[in-house]
């Protein structure tokens, strides 16, 4: 030991100084050495940032992961990603709790014993895949590849759905479904405009935004994109400030931020829209030019057979005068007049509808009525109106030759489409899906793949769907967690969490420009999990060469590269980049967009993965022909498309006759007759008379689909607005509460014809008097330690009702009784 005496003395004085607890007494230092070594950081603490795409919900925000010595510790929004521009939502911030969740499935699992027994045994990847492949080969060998179904819960347009579709097609099954409602939700636009896409709204340029139940700041497809827009609307000077009017049964986040909240009875949005149309027509506040030249069925018209048909105008004028509408909706007639006049007189004004409007049995018709207001205002192809975004120039998956077995399988009728006349515009109806599988109609399903989404938690017909899952001999789940749905799986092939995997997303619905986002791993996989896409490639290789040919890629990452290469070749758009630090508004208005400079695809790819995405802000002006792909080539108030569909249905029921027509309309539950059926109209929602209160559910930013329930941070924040944590509540208007003798923070029973739930009452003046609302997302019976047993799932007492046209679950069609729980 060569420590000098002086040093030793210094040491001694230093230590005894600590002992003597001097002026700044830091007593903890006494026990330092051991503690120090324990607490000392392990690495140098080198910070790196990686850009990727958030996978917490379908919005697809660009995020930046802060990694310290390779371990992700913090997330912030990617400031250059055009969708969210650095913004994030609470749920995105809890992504690390997905990655590091203690309840993750760490290796492939095989069920032991009965379904839902909760007992699992580990199985090697190879065995599991071989087992599935053998089953699939067997089905193909007996010529029944169509008896395989794939249920994809992601509601996100990207590469994954194409990947699965390609696989299923090559295998020979028409039964690939996205259980999200994205495709179903386009039904109104299919009927009115013939467009199979959700519109985007140019909110930035509009001066008056009338939202029919569209909770775009919270429940929309991309709440953060709309929050950014909202923020810019509010940033503008007082003069000419955009007014936002929200029509909703309760004060949602959007209503709270709107200038005016108009409470409305659930299920009557369509009537209100038509009431507003009445005023617009009466007071001649509509766009004459547009109506005259680009619309069909506004006035009464005569077809080539000489039959006069009812026009939109006559229908509205005769049936939807404000007093009548006021009776239906509960909105005072003066209010209807006022908003209609404001709407008609503001240039420009835009009307949007979602959630409240569409989540009901009459959703499609209501949304048609709402959208027809945009037509009255001539809101197509103009600033501050409605527009449709182009698809990015991505490469389609390479074409392949399907073999005979596959061709035969693909020719079969998809099992989730209705065999009778229900839900004519449904792309996927869970109601038909369960009914048909349970009845082996037209054929049984032997293998079901489940990817993302936890459909069992969200379905109204919980029992039937559970039975379906029990019935199917082999259910394979790709879930990285054991959810309610995967409790019924036979094999779980755990997927990576989104922070460990490659994926590619494009064009988040309703976002107003073309964009592509690249999701990439920010950390090596923590456990023995595999990207579901890679598993599918592997499976295809195991099954048959002809199936394998459809997905000729080493890995999913290569597939993404392949698909993106066309983006590079197209020369359109640009990789998102910093550089321009101007505001977002200026970004959008910037038309002369310059293309980034990259000399090779490799360079492009490197930059793309580094920056996290590509976008093309230039919106091509489209002429009306492209916007209206209807038989008339115009905006059809009178939907000829719908008329054709109904006619086809009538034909299948036995040919045109008034009886058959009546039969079809009756089985569709459409109450009106004649031409009104094809016009936007109000369909009364069938409700129980003996129940006094409407029951609705809503979603919160903290837990949009119940998928964040296994993240303690989100569970804690769940009801931050009402200061309820880890718990559900029911919002009741104070006056209603008084009527039923209910006090704040007391438990109440909510009883519907289906069942009853016990929830804590929270009095809230921001809800209609005849409505009670429970947030959706909690009440899990599985899904890990943080989710199981907290809160209540309101879906369990909803009636088994669906939109009569597109088969979406009707979340607001139930009425209930409430009473104080003792």
């Amino acid at each position: 030991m060569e420590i000098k005496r002086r040093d030793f003395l210094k040491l001694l004085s230093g230590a005894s100084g600590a002992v003597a607890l001097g002026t700044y007494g830091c007593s903890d230092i006494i026990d330092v050495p051991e503690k120090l070594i324990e607490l000392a950081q392990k690495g140098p603490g080198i910070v790196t940032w990686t850009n990727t795409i958030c996978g917490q919900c379908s919005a697809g925000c660009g995020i930046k992961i802060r990694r310290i010595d390779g371990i992700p510790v913090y997330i912030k929004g990617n400031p250059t990603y055009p969708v969210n521009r650095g913004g994030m939502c609470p749920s995105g911030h809890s992504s690390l709790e997905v990655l590091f969740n203690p309840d993750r499935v760490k290796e492939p699992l095989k069920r032991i014993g009965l379904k839902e027994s909760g007992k699992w045994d580990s199985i090697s990847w190879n065995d599991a895949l071989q087992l599935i492949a053998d089953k699939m080969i067997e089905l193909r060998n007996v010529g029944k590849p169509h008896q395989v179904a794939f249920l994809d819960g992601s509601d996100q347009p990207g590469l994954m759905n194409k990947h699965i579709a390609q696989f299923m097609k090559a295998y020979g099954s028409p039964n690939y479904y996205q259980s999200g409602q994205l495709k179903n939700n386009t039904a109104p636009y299919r009927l009115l405009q013939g467009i199979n896409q959700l519109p985007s709204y140019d909110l930035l340029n509009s001066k008056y935004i009338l939202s029919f139940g569209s909770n775009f700041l919270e429940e929309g497809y991309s709440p953060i994109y709309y929050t950014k827009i909202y923020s810019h609307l509010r940033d503008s000077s007082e003069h000419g400030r955009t007014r936002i009017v929200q029509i909703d049964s309760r004060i949602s986040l959007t209503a709270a931020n709107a200038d005016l909240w108009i409470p409305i009875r659930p299920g009557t949005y369509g009537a209100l829209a038509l009431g507003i149309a009445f005023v617009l027509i009466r007071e001649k506040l509509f766009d004459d030019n547009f109506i005259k030249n680009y619309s069909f069925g506004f006035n009464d018209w005569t077809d080539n057979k000489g039959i006069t048909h009812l026009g939109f105008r006559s229908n509205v004028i005769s049936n939807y005068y404000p007093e009548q509408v006021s009776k239906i909706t509960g909105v005072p007639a003066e209010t209807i007049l006022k908003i209609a006049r404001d709407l008609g007189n503001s240039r420009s004004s835009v009307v949007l509808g979602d959630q409240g409007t569409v989540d009901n049995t009459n959703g499609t018709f209501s949304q048609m009525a709402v959208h027809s207001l945009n037509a009255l205002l001539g809101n197509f192809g103009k600033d501050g109106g409605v527009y449709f975004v182009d698809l990015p120039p991505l490469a389609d998956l390479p074409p392949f030759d399907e073999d005979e077995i596959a061709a035969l399988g693909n020719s079969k009728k998809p099992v989730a489409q209705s065999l009778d006349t229900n839900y004519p515009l449904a792309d996927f109806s869970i109601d038909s899906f369960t009914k048909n599988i349970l009845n082996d109609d037209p054929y049984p399903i032997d293998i079901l793949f489940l990817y993302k989404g936890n459909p069992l938690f969200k379905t109204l017909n919980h029992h039937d769907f559970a039975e379906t899952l029990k019935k199917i001999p082999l259910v394979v789940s790709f879930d990285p967690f054991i959810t309610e749905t995967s409790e019924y799986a036979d094999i779980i092939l755990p997927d990576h969490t989104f922070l460990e995997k490659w994926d590619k997303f494009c064009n988040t619905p309703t976002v107003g420009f073309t964009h592509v986002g690249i999701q990439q791993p920010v950390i090596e996989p923590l456990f023995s999990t595999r990207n579901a896409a890679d598993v599918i490639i592997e499976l295809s290789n195991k099954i048959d060469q002809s199936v394998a040919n459809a997905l000729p890629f080493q890995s999913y990452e290569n597939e993404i590269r392949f698909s993106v290469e066309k983006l590079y070749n197209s020369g359109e758009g640009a990789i998102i980049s910093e550089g321009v630090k101007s505001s977002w508004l200026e970004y959008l208005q910037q038309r002369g967009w310059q293309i980034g400079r990259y000399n090779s695809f490799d360079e492009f790819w490197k930059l793309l993965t580094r920056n996290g995405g590509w976008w093309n802000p230039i919106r091509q002006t489209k002429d009306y022909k492209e916007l209206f792909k209807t038989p008339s080539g115009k905006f059809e108030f009178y939907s000829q498309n719908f008329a054709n569909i109904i006619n086809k249905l009538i034909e299948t029921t036995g040919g045109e006759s008034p009886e058959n027509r009546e039969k079809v309309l009756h089985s569709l539950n459409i109450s009106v007759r004649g031409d009104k059926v094809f016009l936007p109209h109000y369909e009364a929602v069938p409700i129980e008379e003996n129940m006094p209160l409407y029951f609705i559910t809503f979603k919160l930013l903290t837990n949009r689909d119940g998928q964040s329930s296994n993240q303690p941070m989100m569970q804690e924040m769940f009801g931050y607005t009402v200061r309820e944590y880890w718990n559900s509540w029911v919002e009741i208007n104070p006056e209603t509460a008084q009527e039923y003798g209910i006090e704040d923070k007391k438990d109440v029973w909510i009883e519907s014809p289906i069942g009853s739930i016990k929830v804590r009452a929270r009095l809230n003046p921001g809800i209609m008097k005849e409505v009670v609302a429970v947030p959706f997302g909690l009440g899990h019976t599985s899904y890990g330690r943080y989710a199981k047993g907290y809160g209540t799932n309101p879906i369990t007492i909803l009636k088994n009702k669906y939109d009569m046209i597109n088969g979406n679950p009707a979340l607001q069609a139930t009425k209930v009784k409430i009473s104080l729980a003792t």
Partner: protein
Amino acid sequence: MRKMVKQNSKLFIVASAAIVLVVIVWVVLGSHRNITQPISYNHKIHIEEAELTCVDCHLYVETMPTATIPNIEICQDCHSDEPMSDSPEEVKLLKYIEEGEKIPWQRIYAVPNHVYFSHRRHVTIGEIACSNCHGNVEELTEPPSYPLWLPTMENCISCHKEHKVTYDCLACHR
């Protein structure tokens, strides 16, 4: 009698002084157990004969908060297959390198994790010599077995006061 009383009290004083001393010694010495490193690294030889500087191995001293202790990745740059000396310590090192196993160095200098201490701040910006806190390491033929200078708050603050730099709590506490 009085004498006895006096003796008693004397005894008492001596005894209590002894107890206090024992406590102090126990705390001072007991607080740093002598740490023996897995390899008895010779700083002197590396600096004088291999002509290395601190930064060559403690890579992040000038740029990062933590200086880091070099491990096999850095050692193996020089110590590849052939031993350079006949030191038994080098044999140990080569074994670690061969097996690709990290050397389990024991840290003897560390601040508690509620303290933000940055080497960059002190070395690069403050231009304080390493020896100020770590002592004359270049003269050491074996690694120090306990910290030369304890990072107690008193020590930090007295030095900060001496150099007239901030001793605001939030400058270090986090």
